[in-house]
């Protein structure tokens, strides 16, 4: 099995799906000749030509809109938003059209489109290159929001997203691109969308999170294990719709739950996770549900100490787990 980076798993999944199905094509800003600003689509234009790897103008609404149109005609577009921060002009296309067309057309039409977008901070990207935007799309039935944490999950879930017959928002943590490496099988596998994954077994405190914070939680858990604190870690992988069964199981396992997101705290995904736990697990809870999240301020700061203050890191998670363990 090959060890590869998170972003190489993205590229591999795209290549495999384009080879498998000629209806799959890629479009977005700089995805062709440049190979993507993060190099996620590197080599694709050489292999599949400019008709299947299309450079677009700087118009996110058109990128999404063209994708929707092509999808309605039976293609499987994979559109790239250069940064998730730039997705806002395309929100109307995604929420009002892509997510609703199956319902609106009484099942006659569907949009098998994948929207890839790098999100997240910790890269000194400041306001327009650091945002977490998943909460905006997580109240939209008809849409799925996938946020993998490992290269293995990236490949399996991106392939599943491309093959899904409805629109999927596939969010890749940009700091994870080259930071996170892991083993990725060479065979053609997919992972189920809508299923969370236990990344570590433990019985003192449950951490439920997703994306890059999964790795921070794993690091914290490793350190705390030496103190005799055993941490259970659930990776949501899909943040909409949520895997309620897995959340209930993981929360009930220890009765002490820490929810972690890099997004601003109020109105984030983990608030919904907390509600699921509160509705289902009252008599298994041994401590108040705790949330660790970004502060409720308008943007990720550029100044390194302030960015560090905003970002989730292993030390913050370790501290929060220890507090819950001692409660």
């Amino acid at each position: 099995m090959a060890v590869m980076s998170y972003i190489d798993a993205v590229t591999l999944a795209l290549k495999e799906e384009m080879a498998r199905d000629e209806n799959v094509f890629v479009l977005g800003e700089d995805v062709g000749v440049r190979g993507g600003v993060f190099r996620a689509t590197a080599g694709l234009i050489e292999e599949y030509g400019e008709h299947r790897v299309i450079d677009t103008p700087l118009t996110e609404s058109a990128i999404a809109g063209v994708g929707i149109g092509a999808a309605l005609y039976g293609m499987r577009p994979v559109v790239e938003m250069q940064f998730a921060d730039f997705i806002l002009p395309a929100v109307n296309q995604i929420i009002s059209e892509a997510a609703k067309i199956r319902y609106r057309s009484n099942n006659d039409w569907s949009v098998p489109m994948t929207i890839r977008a790098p999100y997240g901070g910790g890269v000194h990207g400041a306001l327009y290159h650091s945002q977490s935007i998943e909460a905006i799309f997580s109240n939209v039935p008809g849409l799925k929001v996938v946020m993998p944490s490992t290269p293995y999950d990236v490949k399996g879930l991106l392939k599943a997203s491309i093959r899904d017959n409805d629109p999927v928002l596939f969010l890749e943590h940009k700091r994870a691109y080259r930071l996170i490496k892991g083993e990725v099988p060479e065979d053609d596998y997919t992972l189920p969308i809508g299923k969370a994954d236990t990344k570590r077994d433990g019985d003192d405190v449950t951490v439920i999170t997703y994306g890059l914070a999964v790795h921070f939680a794993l690091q914290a858990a490793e350190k705390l294990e030496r103190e005799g604190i055993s941490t259970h870690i659930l990776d949501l992988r899909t943040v909409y719709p949520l895997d309620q069964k897995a959340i209930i199981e993981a929360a009930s396992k220890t009765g002490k739950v820490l929810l972690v997101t890099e997004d601003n705290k109020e109105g984030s995904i983990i608030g919904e996770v907390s509600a699921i736990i509160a509705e289902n697990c009252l008599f298994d809870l041994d401590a108040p549900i705790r949330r660790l999240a970004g502060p409720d301020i308008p943007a990720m700061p550029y100044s390194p100490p302030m960015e560090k203050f905003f970002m989730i890191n292993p030390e913050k998670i370790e501290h929060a787990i220890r507090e819950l363990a001692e409660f």
Partner: protein
Amino acid sequence: MATEKITMPQLGESVTEGTISKWLVEVGDVVQKYDPIAEVTTDKVNAEVPSSFTGKIKELTASEGDTLEVGDLIGYIESEAADGAEEDESSAEKAEEKTVETDGLTAEASDAPMKKRYSPAVLKLAQENDIDLDQVNGSGKGGRITRKDIMIIIESGNVPKAEPRAEKKSAQEAPKTAAAAEEKKAAPQSASIPVVPGDVEIPVSGVRRAIATNMVRSKHEAPHAWTMVEVDVTNLVNYRNSVKNDFKSKEGYSLTFLPFFIKATVEALKEFPRINSMWAGDKIIEKKDINISIAVATDDALYVPVIKNADEKSIKGLGKSVNDLAKKVRENRLSGDDMQGGTFTVNNTGSFGSIQSQPIINYPQAAILSVESIVKRPVVMNNGMIAVRDMVNLCMSLDHRVLDGLIVGRFLASVKDKLEKITPENTSIY
């Protein structure tokens, strides 16, 4: 100099309260830090409480015999510098610093009562496994019992029980937590009853246990006195018989005698508000609302749901309330709200043929009235003739702390008078 609080210290891990058995100092005494100031008895230890400060005792807020929670205030001390060295008044700044330090200490002390703060998970596991949480030491913050503490106990198999022979209760049967504290008092010391083959052992259900608890409590706390009057209800019987068929076809349920008795009782309660009161230790509380508890029996239990503001209802309204509540009892749909707020109880013992009973007061109410069977009896009338009349006994138990015979006698005379005077002309069903 600064005034410091003296608080009940934590004497042992699981101790939550202590009783001051003896003060060893008086107001005005000068004590050194660590000098004993009081003797305290807890369920674990007897100990002397050392002074946390050097200074002069300013006030003792607790008296000998008082039982206080850990951390509760027991007095004030005018402290000098805490290191005990005799310093002049001018070193005020230093005293200031010490105050800040001791604030930190009291904050820690107030963290301690987490021992009794149970999480839902801990309560559930304790109920399911019949664990007496008082006997469990917590490893969590402030002595809190954690779910893991309970899991370890369950795994070890060494489960501390409230009474070792008590029947295992299912979670459904377990009584409400409020009743749980009282439960121990009512729990029978069953050890001495021999069981031979053929005897049937019936586990005590939560409801049965709650009834037992309340009955023991009422009989134990309220000195019961008892009285009875007999009432000629011939007019009432005739009146009700003349309208009952009409009523049933119009309203869909039967018009029983009970609403008439409740109506007369409620009117009399308005005249004698003291009957509608409760003993509160240092005072008697006359309740403004008249909420009538009615006793409704099932095959194996007794419930006392409440007709709220019974004084605002007509006879029909009372009849409907009785009917609704009885239906809820039979269908097991009573809510907690249906059971709360009663100020006086009317017990319909006549419904199963009783002609005389000594009811136990529905704690914490002050009195209870039993309406017995209406029976035909020969009665000597005012004119010396003997007539066959419909007679009923009204029996009343009263809390003699709150009520005396005289007021109850007047109250019953009023109820009797109202019932005997009922006629179609002066009493409307609606």
